[in-house]
């Protein structure tokens, strides 16, 4: 169901300053209320009711994650905000930092209080210079007003927020890699356990939240977390509230839109983004960042079991399934970062596949052999097929390589490479075979709509 909201986006066109945030978005009222009238335990109980599924890709419930934080007798605790936004196809967090930075600062105050931390680090990828500037500006304004510092809103609970930057490495979006990078090390993912809630930043209990996850917290607390959750048509699947939906690729009006959770791909593409470029038929959609397996436009939901949450859509097009964490899992992909990449009929699927696997080859941190060698091998083998030198065995080899990465690596980058690879191989096998038979050629391959 398509329902526009503007909890986060209202100030996008009005201005990014504290003044505007307070005047037009009831800015800092939620943080004030939380710090002055709630206990830590109440904050966590309330947060759980919002059913905010992590906006960074994995969809873990935010309130539950906060509840893993236990007070430690000697160690500090940290809140770390993930603004490394590097997943291809994802362009939502940047808009928040540039146009509504105060929602993030306010979210950090509530988050710190809820998990028992006094310091939040916002890890922003270095390329986002305007985002860094706006975040530092907002922090400065909030500190000058007494919303940050030793006694925010007069409460004896110190909160400081800092920006930390990376230096160009997609893998630093993975939370343990990000923690290493925050500590001044190479951004190599850590083995889990221990999980960040036990030993995260500087060896201390830490919560890592995506930037959008924390930014929506003030709106949820202001309205009451249960009411916020119910804005979603997937509230019954514990997938609540509103989200930023991004749409890019072959649509007439790409962009970022705030909508109640539960919009369908069809609504997003045709009603929100004005339809496919050149009014072409749709070939496929990558629903939530390049690590989420591609959906073909002609796929149909198969969920005959009445107990399946997808049963209401049995026999219908995948484009008519609401975009949610569980529903996308149900159709064999993931909601991911909730930013869809649209491909029109005529896009060469092998060239698209090659483009993505070049990305993973480039970004593997190299710690695990299956990922380091596998991502390079995938890239080379697709290139060989694209060059017209591939065999049918090479197509099977690609699946073998991907399957050998799955489950054999330190971090989820491995699955993030293998799953979309297996998706492309399954969905576009016919087109890839045409390359092997010489019926499709490199010279004719296009990614653009003409």
């Amino acid at each position, binding site marked *: 169901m398509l329902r526009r909201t503007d909890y986060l986006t209202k100030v996008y066109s009005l201005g990014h300053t504290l003044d505007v945030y307070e005047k037009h978005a009831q800015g800092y009222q939620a943080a004030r209320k939380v710090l002055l009238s709630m206990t830590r335990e109440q904050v966590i109980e309330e947060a759980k009711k919002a059913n905010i599924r992590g906006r960074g890709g994995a969809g873990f419930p935010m309130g539950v994650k906060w509840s893993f934080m236990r007070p430690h007798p000697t160690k*500090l605790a940290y809140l770390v905000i993930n603004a490394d*936004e*590097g*997943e*291809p*196809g*994802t*362009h939502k*967090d*940047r808009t928040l930092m540039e146009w509504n930075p105060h929602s993030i600062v306010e979210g950090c105050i509530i988050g710190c209080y809820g998990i028992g931390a006094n310091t939040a680090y916002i890890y922003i*990828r*270095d*390329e*986002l*210079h*305007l985002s860094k500037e706006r975040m530092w500006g907002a922090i400065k304004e909030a500190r000058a007003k007494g919303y940050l510092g030793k006694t925010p809103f007069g409460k004896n609970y110190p909160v400081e927020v*800092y920006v*930390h*930057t*990376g*230096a*160009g*490495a*997609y893998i630093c979006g993975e939370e343990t890699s990000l923690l290493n*990078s*925050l*500590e*001044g*090390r*190479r*951004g*190599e993912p850590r083995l889990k356990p221990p999980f960040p809630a036990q030993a995260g930043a*500087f060896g201390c209990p830490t919560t890592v939240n995506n930037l959008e996850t924390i930014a929506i917290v003030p709106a949820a607390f202001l309205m009451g977390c249960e009411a916020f959750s119910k804005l979603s048509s997937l509230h019954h699947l514990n997938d609540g509230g509103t989200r930023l939906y*991004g*749409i*890019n*690729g*072959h649509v007439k009006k*790409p*962009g*970022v839109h705030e909508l109640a959770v539960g919009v369908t791909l069809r609504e997003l593409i045709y009603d929100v983004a004005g339809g496919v470029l050149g009014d072409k038929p749709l070939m496929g959609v*990558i629903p939530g960042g*390049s690590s989420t397996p591609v959906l073909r436009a002609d796929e149909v939901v198969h969920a005959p079991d009445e107990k399946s949450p997808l049963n209401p859509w049995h026999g219908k097009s995948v484009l008519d399934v609401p975009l949610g964490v569980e529903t996308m899992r149900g159709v064999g992909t993931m909601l991911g970062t909730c*930013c869809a*990449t*649209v*491909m029109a009929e005529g*896009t060469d699927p092998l060239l*698209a596949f090659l*483009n*993505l696997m070049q*990305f993973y080859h*480039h*970004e593997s941190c190299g710690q695990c052999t299956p990922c380091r060698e596998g991502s390079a091998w995938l890239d080379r083998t697709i290139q060989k097929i694209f060059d017209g030198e591939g065999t049918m065995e090479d197509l099977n080899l690609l699946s073998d390589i991907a399957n050998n990465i799955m489950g054999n690596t330190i971090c989820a980058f491995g699955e993030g490479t293998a799953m979309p690879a297996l998706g492309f191989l399954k969905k576009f096998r016919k087109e890839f075979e045409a390359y092997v038979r010489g019926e499709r050629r490199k010279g004719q391959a296009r*990614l*653009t709509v003409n």
Partner: protein
Amino acid sequence: MAFALTPERERELQDILTRYPNKMAATIPVLHLCQDQHGWISDEIVHYVSQKLDVPPAHVKGVVTFYTLFNQHPVGKNQVWVCRTLPCALRGAYDIIEHCEKRLGVKCGETTKNGKVTLRTAECLASCGTAPMMQVNQQYYEDLTSEKVDEILRKLQES
């Protein structure tokens, strides 16, 4: 020691140190400060950072080599990165890259003879909704057309 930060940057370094529970955590921000001043990370800078932050030179070197944004060699006066990843490619990034190479007379990864521009490709820069795009030094340029690119490159060549 030959390399030293300017007084203003030295003050910023001191401010950076207040943000973390230990000095090592300042490694990346301090390397950025140094590169901002010098253009790339020389061995001298590696030693400078190592002494400033009480960490071994090998640690600093390891960090420098891990992250793509730290230049291990001198680069051109201006940095151009064209995003090449799928969402941008779906909207013409490959043509933009070809156009830049032709206009500048270099391949991606190279610097123009006059030292003005280093051209590189980038992986997704979080602007897929305004593709194709490129980053020039600290500035993003979005919804690119070949006319826009010509204008941008012309200014860089004159810089």
